[in-house]
């Protein structure tokens, strides 16, 4: 006996297919409805471009945290992007395939390590090294950048390798047959053909770095100020939400949701750019 007809099955499946998109809309709706009224009441300009964050005095300016988030993400890029892309090219062009098939999943394991563990390593190992060698409190912009740079490596390496391997083998053979070295083939052929995928991997890494919370709370020091050097303690947008959410009420809580709105918008923009870049690659293929 058939419980549900074929048509019924199709309808049920279609409904579930909208689960992800409705979850996304629900998230957008609730974050915006909590955060936007505050932004309108407080004024977008005062909220975004003032650095005074004193919730007990009713001052909610997140400029210092925006700057801190940008610097930390930029720092993570400087650490993670060159290392990750170099790694991706080495593994896909210089190393035999079977070795790459062992190393790639091993590096992807880096992504599975919980972010609190990264933060803890930052506190126990990295911060003391920085404090002893460069001065400052140790928990700083620099340590946050390095830890985040390491955390985004798997994203960059894994997606870059996929896009480098998607370049047709005949391109490489053509270049090598003309007498080019592997390095010349990389710089003149492979990198051009896999550019959009590599850029997408870096943008996705960027998104991960901006959104990372727990590791940053542990290693960045969390004082609200515009950093003057890499050794200063900073507080990012994400850290601000997570640190104060547990006790915030009323206007203060709305301000934290408004911080979430800013973060949400930035992430959606970054992801849209990345997904356009990845689509472009697929179309080319």
């Amino acid at each position, binding site marked *: 006996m058939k419980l549900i007809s074929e048509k019924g099955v199709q309808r*049920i499946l279609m409904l579930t297919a909208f689960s992800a998109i409705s979850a996304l809309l629900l998230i957008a709706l609730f*974050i915006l409805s909590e955060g936007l009224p505050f932004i309108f009441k407080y004024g977008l300009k005062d909220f975004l471009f003032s650095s005074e964050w004193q919730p007990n005095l009713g001052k909610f300016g997140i400029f210092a945290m925006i700057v801190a988030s940008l610097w930390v993400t930029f720092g993570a890029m400087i650490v993670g992007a060159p290392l*990750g892309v170099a790694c991706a090219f*080495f593994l896909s062009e210089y190393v035999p395939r079977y070795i790459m098939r062992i190393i790639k999943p091993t590096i992807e394991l880096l992504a599975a390590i919980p972010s609190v563990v990264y933060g803890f390593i930052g506190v126990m190992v990295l911060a003391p090294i920085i404090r002893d060698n460069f001065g400052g409190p140790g928990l700083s912009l620099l340590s946050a950048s390095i830890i985040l740079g390491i955390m985004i490596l798997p994203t960059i390496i894994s997606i870059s390798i996929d896009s480098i391997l998607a370049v047709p083998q005949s391109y490489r053979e053509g270049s090598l047959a003309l007498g080019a070295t592997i390095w010349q083939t990389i710089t003149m052929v492979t990198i051009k053909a896999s550019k959009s995928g590599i850029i997408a991997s870096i943008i996705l890494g960027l998104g991960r770095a*901006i959104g990372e919370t727990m590791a940053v709370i542990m290693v960045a020091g969390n004082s609200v100020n515009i950093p003057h050097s890499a050794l200063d303690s900073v507080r990012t947008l994400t850290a601000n939400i997570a640190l104060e959410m547990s006790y915030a009420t009323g206007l203060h809580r709305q301000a934290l949701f408004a911080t979430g709105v800013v973060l*949400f918008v930035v*992430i959606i923009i970054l992801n849209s750019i990345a*997904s356009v870049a990845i689509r472009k690659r697929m179309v080319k293929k």
Partner: protein
Amino acid sequence: MRIHPRYIQRGAVAILGSATLLTILILIFIIFFVLEKGLPVISLHFLTDNPEDMGKAGGIFPTLIGTILLPLLALIIASPLGIFTSVYLSEFTKENNVTKIIRFGTDCLAGIPSIIFGLFGYIFFVVTLGFGWSILSGGLTLAVMVLPTIIRTSEEAIRAVPKSYREVSFSLGASRWQTVKKVILPNALPGIVTGVMLSIGRSIGETAAVIFTAGSSLRIPTSVFDSTRTMAVHFYILAREGISAENAYGTAATLIIAVLLVNLSAYWLMNRFIAKRN
């Protein structure tokens, strides 16, 4: 002066090779550092005793329960939704604007940082729906978070089932749904399970989304409306509030072992799947 391409090539190999070596060394260092400090702390008592004095002494038993329950609930909710979505996307419809929107939504959801999931889970499940800080709120939040992973990996697994399997099934007079149930899902199962395992791994290690939705109670939960504390949250609180470095290392090591076990078995499954296919 022009440098001979062969020397540039050698230089490039050296630089790229050392970048790769550095990455692998960092990975090995992180795992060994935590295990070396944490393994001596782990014992049967550590795993099965209740924490004393906010975790300063005693074991981590209640957090083990929380770490099992939350991902379990998340998967019970997210797996059917994710698998059905991927079945719909790959078997029941052609590429059109609707599927494009669904894919875009899934991609966006995958990129949302966990703190935003935490905020959303707090305002929606904890406050608006009135579930409070509970296993239910935490599990639902994690379910939304891992949904894109399950959709993507299941879709890949389903698409990897050869077209001829479907044709044979259809030619025998089977309907679409019968084909999905009897032919496609059984063949795609290892790939789907891999995605589910990776989701478990992510849920186990999650902190920001859990701490604001499931709370951090150290009591052993008796219903889904009770608050609970996962290992990751426990570790965060121990480390950040400097309660006990020793127990923090022990918890971190247990956490890493759990996550590695889950992920390694996912890879093992995936490799077997690929080997069978070829």
